[in-house]
């Protein structure tokens, strides 16, 4: 593990805080895209160079840095929403929560029964911190697009953990997972568009007709 890769992981954790603290959707979408690109660089950096890894990295950067932001910006423009308003928990409290959970992630990661060569790496704590950030965004935001960014951050957190296993994951499975992610975001984009047409808003708290 080299220092450059470590710095990139720190950058990933900093991006988490941008996501927790920003109310503008363009910022959030760009931040998630940047996070995706940074993560895309990591497989090549931390493992020995191979063609297989280069393809994976290229695919991830293309998917998370270009295609998914493009889909999200498209959805955002169609529904004419620029800001998140009144999250269920305010920006400052979520930022604080994010800081606390990131700190706890480090404490927790130090206690895990990792393989000896993985002790003390930044991968595990950054993975946990990103996962929890994803959950925080997913649960505290009202707008459908913000929830999608939360889902993406969650997925990124899982992906970071997968870095420990890049050599074990076959190409086909990686490609399939990425394709599923893109199609998922594409479908979510369409659904968001229909929500805004049907409800004149993408506030998901209005989706409350179906209950017992």
């Amino acid at each position: 593990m080299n220092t450059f890769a470590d710095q990139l992981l720190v950058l990933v954790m900093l991006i988490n805080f941008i996501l927790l603290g920003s109310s503008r959707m363009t910022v959030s979408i760009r931040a998630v895209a940047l996070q995706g690109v940074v993560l895309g660089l990591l497989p090549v950096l931390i493992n020995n160079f191979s063609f297989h890894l280069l393809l994976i990295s290229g695919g991830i950067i293309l998917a998370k840095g270009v295609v998914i932001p493009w889909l999200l910006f498209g959805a955002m423009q169609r529904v004419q929403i620029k800001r998140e308003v009144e999250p269920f928990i305010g920006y400052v409290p979520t930022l604080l929560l994010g800081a606390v959970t990131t700190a706890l992630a480090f404490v927790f990661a130090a206690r895990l029964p990792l393989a000896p060569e993985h002790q003390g790496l930044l991968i595990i704590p950054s993975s946990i911190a990103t996962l929890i950030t994803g959950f925080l965004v997913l649960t505290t935001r009202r707008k459908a697009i913000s929830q999608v960014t939360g889902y993406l951050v969650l997925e990124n957190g899982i992906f970071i953990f997968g870095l420990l296993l890049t050599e074990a994951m076959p190409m086909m499975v990686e490609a399939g997972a990425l394709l599923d992610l893109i199609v998922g975001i594409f479908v979510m984009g369409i659904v968001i568009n229909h929500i805004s047409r049907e409800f004149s808003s993408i506030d998901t708290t209005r989706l409350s007709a179906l209950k017992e």
Partner: protein
Amino acid sequence: MLYGVVLTPLFGALLAWIIPSNRYRPLILPVFAIIHTVQTLLTFIYPPPPSPHGWIVLDPLGKVVLVSITLLFLACAIYAVGYLAFRQERSNRVLCMGLMVCLCAMTLVTVSHHLGLLWVALETTTLTMAPLIYFNHNARSIEATWKYMLICSVGIALALLGLFFLAYSTYVANHQATLLLDELLPAARQLSPAWFNAAFVFLLVGFGTKMGLAPLHTWKPDAYGEAPGLVGALLAGGLVSCAFLALLRVYQICIATGATGFYQQALITMGVVSMAFAAVFMVRQTDFKRMLAYSSVEHVGILTIGLGLGGGALFGALFHLLNNGLTKGVLFLSSGNIHRSYGSKNSEVVKGALQRIPWSGGLFLAGFIAITGSPPFSPFVSEFTIISSAFAQKHYLIGALFLLFLAIIFIGMATTVLAVVMGEAPQDLEETGYRDRFLTVAPPAALMGIILLLGLWMPLPLADLLHGAAALLEVKS
């Protein structure tokens, strides 16, 4: 051969995309469904060799799920022709394509022995169903689709994390990470227990969300309630079986680790909680499609309890997988007809279905009798096997709770179903133009016939198949 079974539906999807006529496009569905059933039968008669690295293998567990999917899909495909003839106002291109891709993905789930590939296929089934739930294009269905999409995506993402933990547990054990079932099983005893337990919890939550085990079932009533009948049938009979198969694969590894107590207890607890939730919400449920969703929660609970009990209950659980799939087909398809005929799915409006549409009303009633576990239908046999096994293993509390919840559910469901089918049809109903036709009645009737037949007589090849599949899940000590 196996590749053929998996990939042929994709040609169907391509054709559905090309064909411009809204009227003739649905004919793709039965054609490819019949091809799929024939191919499935051929693979049973002439077992194909596994793929070179052991990724694609058709074992008895996969066969049980494959058989229930192909039969259910065939019924739904024929029904779709009749149903879509009533829905000519709306383009059915996305629906037909989605159904075909979903059939491909479901088949892939049944044959993959690589858990990563299985995950990709399972995620694909989730995605292809989203546009189908939204077929009706109204505010309620968009809400259901959004909830389904978000909850299931997060759930399946957690399952991916669980798979990573599983791979990591093999890495900690012998520095070679793998997700291939045939490599995992022999090495299971060396797996790092801490990571494997974490993997199990995440996989149970992830696949449990997809199956709709309580308390992770919250998307289910909405999605089942708003989706067209045939989509509901495939969700409740197809996707549930696929997700259960994923859980079975995980459980196979659990057994191979040698320490099964924790896993069995976790499964039984989830199952009992699911049945309890279903029992509570089933009572006084006026929306009969939502009622079916809670019935589905109940039956995934039964499946999980059967799996957790082990022993003789395994045979019951696997048989119940087949029975649940087929009976859900009857219920959703006939309830779709009733919904079409009345333009409502509320039991306060919908009354006297036996009078207004005797075939669909009768099938709905018969389906209800079957799904609640009454003889002579086959769910009775499978549920009875599970209960008797619970008592035989001296799990008296579980057996008693099981019976109690079954009784509550029977009463709760009966109130709604009897209100729908019995009585006088209201006079002030608007004309909806729906009449029972051969194409919309024959498929659920055929499924009902199979359930009745299986309840009275178990064909020997099926019994062998189920015993072979149950042997894979047997705890070896």
